[in-house]
């Protein structure tokens, strides 16, 4: 007979969190196998140890919650949100074990920082001596960013957890909210299929480009795979310290730009275009918002830098200015200039343009971060609608709409949610800027880094380094985490924990 345990919430959360941890842990087999292939035996051992630890913890959590799930398995919104945020938090520590064992990290905090940066597709890192890390660890870094972009919960819902009532709550908890088909499992599978098709197309294209620019076939394949994973997930990691500058190649940059813009697009939009709505690209509010912000940002920065005489020809302007602006706007973070060049050469106007596009970010329900183009589009549209209402006859009632896959009504609830999230992002950005200023960094530098971290971008001006204060590392970890999960899930986790503590105190 199965005994029912007393706290159903705890049991349900434990069961599904355990499930997601088990699923993610199994992925460690891939870098371990890659390392075995390249005879990196120490690294194989690192991954086996990590696999053992995380698999054990996942299994314990599944077993702990199993009885509750069987008898009292009604899923509520708070469960979905808490499972999403808790599994991300626990996995941050578990996935950091291979980093720690590699000897390339200065501390556990640095290792967790790098994992959260990977999961949230930010792309800043504190790893030491990146140019000499193992192939296994490099694959692991890029896998984290690739899986994090799609979402660990999305992964678990696609392949592990059976279709069940309430699964949608997990899906929304991870910051995605577009139902592509009526069932969640179908939706999450479509997300993975689109990503895998592009993984094939992107890796092949970058592999060929790599061969053409002189990389040997093995390196061309690995670099193609890594750069695609980082680009598609708008992560911005690269297998080398110099990021995309390592390749010194116009063609490599052009191919990358195609895939990271694609990666920043809403999965709903991908699905609509793939299924035949080709003109959706021009009608969609998110794309319109992205086109306006990226073209305006590029124009402002390009004019500022052309005027300063730093980059005078079109190729230099495209490779050094437009590339970085689009990389920032899609929240990718591939950089074609060194961190200090932003400060020393770009000047205030260039810096302002890049900071603003970083805050706006890519599309909702994509791998990108920031406020998201959809929300900016909705708020701007609501503003113009209000102005129109003021100027026309008071008796006239007009229903305002916006186009996102289909025509949607621009009601107050949509505008309120969008404004709240934009407000929370700005609050987090201000906090990060103030913290930077408190620790003595110039305000403009702090703003740049804060926008990059809050928007999950990954361009750095040099503040993010292993020598920065621990308080800043911790704040940045939370900012990345909150930014990617879009606040609600993390707040739900804190709420449930507070409830638990309250109940426990009452009983004691």
């Amino acid at each position: 007979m199965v005994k029912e345990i007393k706290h159903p919430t705890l049991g349900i959360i434990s069961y599904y969190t355990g499930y997601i941890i088990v699923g993610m842990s199994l992925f460690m087999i891939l870098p371990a196998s890659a390392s075995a292939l390249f005879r990196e035996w120490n690294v194989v051992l690192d991954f086996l140890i990590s696999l053992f630890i995380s698999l054990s913890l996942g299994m314990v959590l599944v077993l702990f919650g199993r009885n509750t799930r069987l008898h009292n398995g009604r899923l509520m919104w708070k469960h979905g949100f808490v499972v999403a945020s808790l599994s991300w938090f626990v996995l941050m520590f578990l996935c950091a074990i291979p980093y720690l064992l590699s000897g390339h990290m200065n501390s556990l905090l640095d290792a967790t920082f790098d994992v959260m940066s990977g999961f949230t597709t930010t792309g800043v890192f504190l790893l030491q001596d990146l140019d000499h890390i193992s192939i296994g660890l490099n694959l692991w870094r890029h896998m984290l960013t690739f899986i994090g972009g799609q979402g660990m919960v999305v992964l678990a819902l696609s392949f592990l957890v059976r279709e069940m009532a309430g699964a949608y709550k997990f899906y929304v908890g991870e910051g995605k909210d577009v139902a592509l088909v009526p069932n969640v499992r179908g939706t999450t599978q479509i997300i993975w299929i689109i990503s895998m098709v592009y993984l094939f197309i992107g890796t092949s294209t970058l592999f060929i480009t790599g061969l053409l620019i002189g990389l040997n076939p093995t390196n061309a394949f690995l670099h193609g795979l890594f750069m695609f994973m980082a680009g598609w997930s708008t992560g911005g990691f690269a297998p080398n310290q110099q990021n995309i500058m390592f390749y010194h190649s116009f063609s490599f940059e052009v191919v990358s730009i195609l895939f990271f813009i694609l990666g920043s697009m809403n999965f709903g939009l991908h699905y609509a275009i793939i299924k035949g709505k080709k003109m959706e690209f021009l009608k969609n509010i998110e794309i319109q918002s992205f086109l306006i912000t990226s073209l305006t940002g590029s124009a402002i920065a390009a004019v500022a830098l052309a005027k300063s005489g730093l980059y005078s020809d079109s190729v230099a302007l495209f490779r050094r200015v437009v590339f970085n602006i689009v990389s920032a706007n899609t929240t990718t973070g591939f950089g074609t200039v060194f961190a200090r060049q932003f400060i020393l050469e770009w000047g205030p106007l260039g810096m302002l343009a890049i900071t603003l596009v970083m805050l706006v970010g890519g599309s909702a329900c994509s791998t990108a971060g920031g406020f998201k183009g959809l929300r900016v589009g909705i708020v701007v549209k609501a503003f113009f609608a209000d102005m129109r209402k003021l100027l026309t006859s008071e008796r006239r009632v007009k229903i305002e709409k916006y186009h996102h896959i289909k025509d949607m009504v621009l009601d107050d609830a949509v505008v309120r949610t969008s404004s709240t999230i934009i407000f929370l992002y700005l609050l987090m950005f201000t906090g990060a800027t103030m913290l930077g200023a408190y620790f003595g960094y110039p305000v403009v530098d702090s703003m740049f880094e804060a926008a990059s971290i809050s928007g999950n971008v990954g361009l750095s001006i040099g503040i993010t380094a292993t020598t920065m204060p621990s308080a800043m590392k911790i704040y940045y970890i939370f900012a990345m985490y909150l930014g990617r999960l879009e606040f609600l899930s993390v707040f739900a986790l804190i709420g449930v924990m507070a409830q638990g503590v309250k109940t426990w105190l009452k009983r004691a």
Partner: protein
Amino acid sequence: MKRFNFNRATFKSDAVGYASEIGWMVLYTIALFLLSWIISVIPW
């Protein structure tokens, strides 16, 4: 539950869909390059 079907017609129309997405991206990248070119030829 409705399963994905991988028949030839679906594959073909999906391939056209993916190609059109990449096509849009190529056009946008060209537009970005044109923007750089226009800005580079204006004597600021």
